[in-house]
């Protein structure tokens, strides 16, 4: 009797809606079953909280210097020792989390935004769009970062915003090329062809079918991009574009430590450990997310 026919389209959208809800629920369930990912998430959140609440957590100010206390090894008063200017190293590491996290994440956020979108466009549309985007990539790769950084300094001066800009300018290239390469292969897969034949829009194909399948290398690229952004910030500070002292950043601490660690090992060890921990925790979280969202994995 029902006069309203269950049109295929209606069914499809129903299924989709229901599927979406359960997809996320399943994903969350799967993620929290993955203990490594959860542990890594805890560490990552702790690091982020440290960065945010540095002024509450740090035992001392990051810029208070007592010259006579310079270069102390870890001791009771300074748990992780002091730096070459007699500032509490633990406090500087805690504050350093701020700059390093901001740089690491904003660069990666910009990189994902630009890189993945351009990569999707290039891979999906091909033709002259692909051609144009890839030639731009080639031009950008050839221009040395130092030159661009010096240009930025001379025009705008230093500062956090320019640092992020300078790093992000080339930071998106790997992500763009990875996305494009994955799309090039995936777009010819049977399920994509099938989706296309029933008239799914290219945007939906890209976000629903292609992107989730292209995720694995992208996650690696993003997590590896974090330490590389942290170090690039440090190398820019050698040019005067980086974050100015007394504000600390981990990358700068590692780089500065290089002329001290032959004796004063603590100056190199602790920031290196923190950068490694950050990278590891985020790559485990990334792996966990990927597994959780994996369409193939339906335990």
């Amino acid at each position, binding site marked *: 009797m029902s006069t309203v026919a269950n049109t295929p389209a209606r069914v499809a959208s129903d299924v989709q809606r229901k599927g979406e809800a359960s997809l996320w629920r399943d994903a969350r369930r799967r993620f929290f079953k993955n203990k490594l990912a959860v542990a890594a998430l805890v560490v990552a959140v702790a690091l982020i909280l440290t960065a945010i609440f540095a002024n509450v957590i740090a035992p001392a100010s990051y810029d208070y210097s007592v010259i006579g206390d310079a270069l102390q090894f870890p001791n009771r008063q300074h748990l992780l020792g002091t730096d070459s200017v007699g500032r509490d190293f633990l406090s500087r590491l805690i504050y350093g989390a701020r700059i390093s996290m901001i740089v690491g994440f904003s660069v990666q956020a910009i990189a994902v935004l630009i890189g993945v979108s351009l990569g999707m466009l290039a891979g999906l549309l*091909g*033709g002259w769009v*692909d*051609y144009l985007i*890839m*030639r731009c*990539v*080639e*031009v950008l*790769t*050839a*221009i*040395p970062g*130092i*030159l*661009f950084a*010096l*240009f930025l300094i*001379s*025009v705008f001066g230093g500062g956090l915003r320019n640092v992020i800009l300078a790093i992000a300018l080339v930071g998106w290239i*790997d992500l763009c*090329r*990875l996305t494009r*390469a*994955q799309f*090039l*292969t995936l777009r*010819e897969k049977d399920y994509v062809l099938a989706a296309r034949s029933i008239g799914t829009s290219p945007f939906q194909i890209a976000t629903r079918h292609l992107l989730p399948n292209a995720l*694995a*290398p992208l*996650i*690696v*690229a993003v997590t*590896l991009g974090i*330490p*590389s952004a942290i*170090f690039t910030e440090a190398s820019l500070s050698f040019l005067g574009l980086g974050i100015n002292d007394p504000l600390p950043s981990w990358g700068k601490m*590692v*780089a500065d430590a*290089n002329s001290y660690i*032959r004796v004063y090992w603590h100056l*190199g060890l602790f920031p*290196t450990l923190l*950068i*490694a921990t950050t*990278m*590891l925790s985020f*790559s485990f979280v990334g*792996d966990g997310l*990927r597994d959780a969202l*994996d369409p*193939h*994995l339906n335990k």
Partner: protein
Amino acid sequence: MARYLLGRVIGLIGVFIAVSIVAFLLMHSIPGGPFDEEKSPLPPAARANILRKYGLDRPLYIQYLRYMGSALHGDFGISFQNPTETVLQTIGRTWPVSLRLGGLTILIALPLGILLGIIAAVKQNTWIDYVTTFVSTLGLTVPNFVIATWLLLLFSVRLRWLPTGGWGGWKTWIMPVTALGLGPMALAARYTRSSLIEVMRADYIRTAHAKGLSGRRVIMRHALKNALIPLITILGPQVPNLVTGTIFVEVIFRVPGLGKFFVSSIYLRDYPMLMATMLLVALLWSATYLLSDILYTVVDPRVRLYGD
């Protein structure tokens, strides 16, 4: 295919022109020049003499056109840093060294990295996997100049097994190759591991397993092949990156390569050398990108690069 290649070559010319213009503008917009002003600013006459000597007294567009005109005839000028030879001679003298160091590094680091990645993927969550993760974390979070200095102090100063630097004989190759290779190796291992794990979950691999194919054959025959696309994408650029030399490693181990010129030509405002190195990089990268695009079609014949 021929048409596609032709299009890419034309694109290369466009890239060259774009790089040369952008580079030229950036180069001349940063402060300083090929002169030093130590005690006090140079008297205007002395400064003008220096600018005239290097042909920097003309309008920028004329300098550019003159440069490009000579470059078309194969004349890339004379490096300010090496006034007794042409830019091409300098590159010809130093590049082979970097090429050799980079080549050695690629031959050792990339296969090793891929192998580590495969083992880690197959033995996921075992101690092998942890060690691989550890080594790659080290390779990616410790900058290569730090690794280089540690190697130097351990093997030359402490143990006295190896000379502190120089270039000649295998003894001088060990440390630079190690310092240079750790990063790319780590990169290869990380990407291989993650791509393999991803692919191994795919339906057809599970099917292959179900059909009773042995583990190793499945990996070699099916999984690895499909994991290759991201590897080509990421490891491809490691080749031009490594063969053009790296300043820190070359400088620390006294390798007389091309690497330092990428940085010194900027610091010293050595415009001819800077332009030449940038064009060289553009050429190498474009070639690498073209090659990786072609490789995609080889690995996966369904990939179409040119139109539908």
